[in-house]
């Protein structure tokens, strides 16, 4: 279970004042749930996810994972505790091959090609074409992103955080990816926290968290929150449906 209590993350604005990126965020996510965090750009979703992984140090508040306070714990410590994080824009590595990254992720010196290939297949990559390739600029953004997701699958962690996994991924691979999330969730062995704006991913969720201006504005079962989100999109926008369409 992940419990986020009164989490704040403040930065200084150019005028020297304080700017709240996260404002008193409290959130409780049950074991083995699939929770989608959504909301407008710049609302604080990525910062919240990064705070859970330890990539951002909150100004105040606490993060508790399975009863253990991890607020002050290092990134490495959290990773070893079973928390993983798929970057929105993963870095590239000159010289490190796809299979090297998968080995590191799995925490083993070597990984059978067959096992490594399974992870790549689950993100829609033809494994034999990629396993020995360097994760460098020769790969497209969508390819790097899918390799990034494969490393999270290889970790087999208890809490998997994915930051906009759909970004840059083609439709065909995206379909495969949603199936993979669904399959992981069906096993009920891990908690999935997915930042996404994609209807197909939101549809997989047990719960939806909406974050705006650094605050949780809504949190509840998908059936309850999803209709409210749809009502706020352009198709549910009274101006776009009315005034803007007038001659």
């Amino acid at each position, binding site marked *: 279970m992940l419990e986020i209590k009164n989490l704040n993350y403040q930065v200084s604005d150019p005028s020297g004042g304080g700017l709240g990126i996260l404002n008193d965020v409290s959130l409780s996510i049950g074991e083995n749930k699939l929770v989608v965090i959504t909301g407008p750009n710049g609302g604080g979703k990525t910062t919240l996810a990064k705070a859970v*992984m330890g*990539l951002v140090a909150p100004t105040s508040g606490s993060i508790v994972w399975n009863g253990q306070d991890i607020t002050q714990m*290092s*990134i*490495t410590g959290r*990773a*070893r505790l079973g928390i*993983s*994080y798929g*970057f929105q824009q*993963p*870095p590239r*590595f*000159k*010289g*490190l*091959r796809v299979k*090297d*990254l998968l080995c*590191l*992720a799995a*925490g083993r010196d070597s990984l059978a090609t067959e096992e490594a290939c399974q992870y790549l297949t689950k993100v829609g990559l033809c494994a034999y074409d990629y396993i020995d390739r360097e994760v460098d600029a020769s790969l497209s953004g969508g390819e790097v992103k899918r390799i990034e997701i494969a*490393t999270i699958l290889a*970790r087999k962690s208890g809490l998997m955080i994915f930051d906009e996994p759909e970004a840059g991924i083609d439709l065909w691979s995206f379909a495969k990816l949603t199936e993979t999330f669904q399959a992981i969730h069906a096993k009920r062995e891990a908690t999935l926290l997915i930042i996404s704006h994609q209807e197909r991913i939101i549809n997989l969720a047990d719960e939806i968290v909406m974050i705006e201006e650094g605050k949780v504005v809504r949190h509840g079962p998908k059936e309850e929150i999803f209709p409210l989100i749809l009502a706020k999109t352009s198709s549910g926008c009274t101006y776009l449906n009315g005034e803007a369409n007038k001659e």
Partner: protein
Amino acid sequence: MMDKTDWKLLKEIADLEKTPQGAYNIRRNGQLDSRSTTANIDITTKTGGKSGIDIRVKPGTKKESIHIPVIIQATGFTELVYNDFFIGEDCDVDIVAGCGIHNTGCETAQHDGLHTFYIGKNSKVRYVERHYGEGEGEGKRIFNPQTVVYLEEGASIQMETTQIRGVDSTKRDTKIVVGKDAEAVITEKLLTHGSQTAQSDMEIVLDGAGASGRVISRSVAQGQSKQVFYPKMTGNAACFGHVQCDSIIMDQAQVSSIPAIAANHVDAQLIHEAAIGRIAGDQLLKLMTLGLTEEEAEEKILDGFLQ
């Protein structure tokens, strides 16, 4: 007699754990330690005052290897060695060279090697050269290799040079003249630390129509070490050349990368790329999210970069 340290050096520079298969010449503290020749590969000691060996490979020799490692364990020992390679036509051979110095004393140990390759028509050569230094002594470990290669029509050389830690000072000079439809590929890997210095000058002359050249240089500079690279590619015919230099800079190190391309023919296509930068923070963070400590992540990134 070879001792444990000698074998450790041989393992580092030539990946040898026992006497190699095929032709070999092991030079130890300036003297011939052991040598073996084959029906197709002859090795003879130079005469006429120059120290070194001549290696002659008969035309048509395929899938054979030649090991010519040099090991030095004597402090204060310096040498200048000339090795000439005459590779006949239509050959396909691997040559593993390299030098290891174990210096426990306080005087300099230095190996300067001048290797000249004459590679015949349509022959393929893979040339691997590793330099390695160790020893607790304050004496310097210095290497100054010079390599000159002449590639005849359709010939190719794949040259891999590696120097990871342990060498106080090195100045490397490489010149390759590439004939018609011939190809030269140089892969250079270098890691310096402490107050070490390294300079690598390269000149690849694409002389014949259809010649191609490629330089891939990757280096890591740590501590207060200094590195300078001068790769130069000259196109004198319809040819293709690519120079790529990448360096990771750390601590208070200094790196200069000065690639040059010169075209003397309208159909010469030459490209150079050079980049110097520190390890990106997001690379470290990514590997830490996989459970590595910051130090382990740094090591993995450097290992991969120099792989």
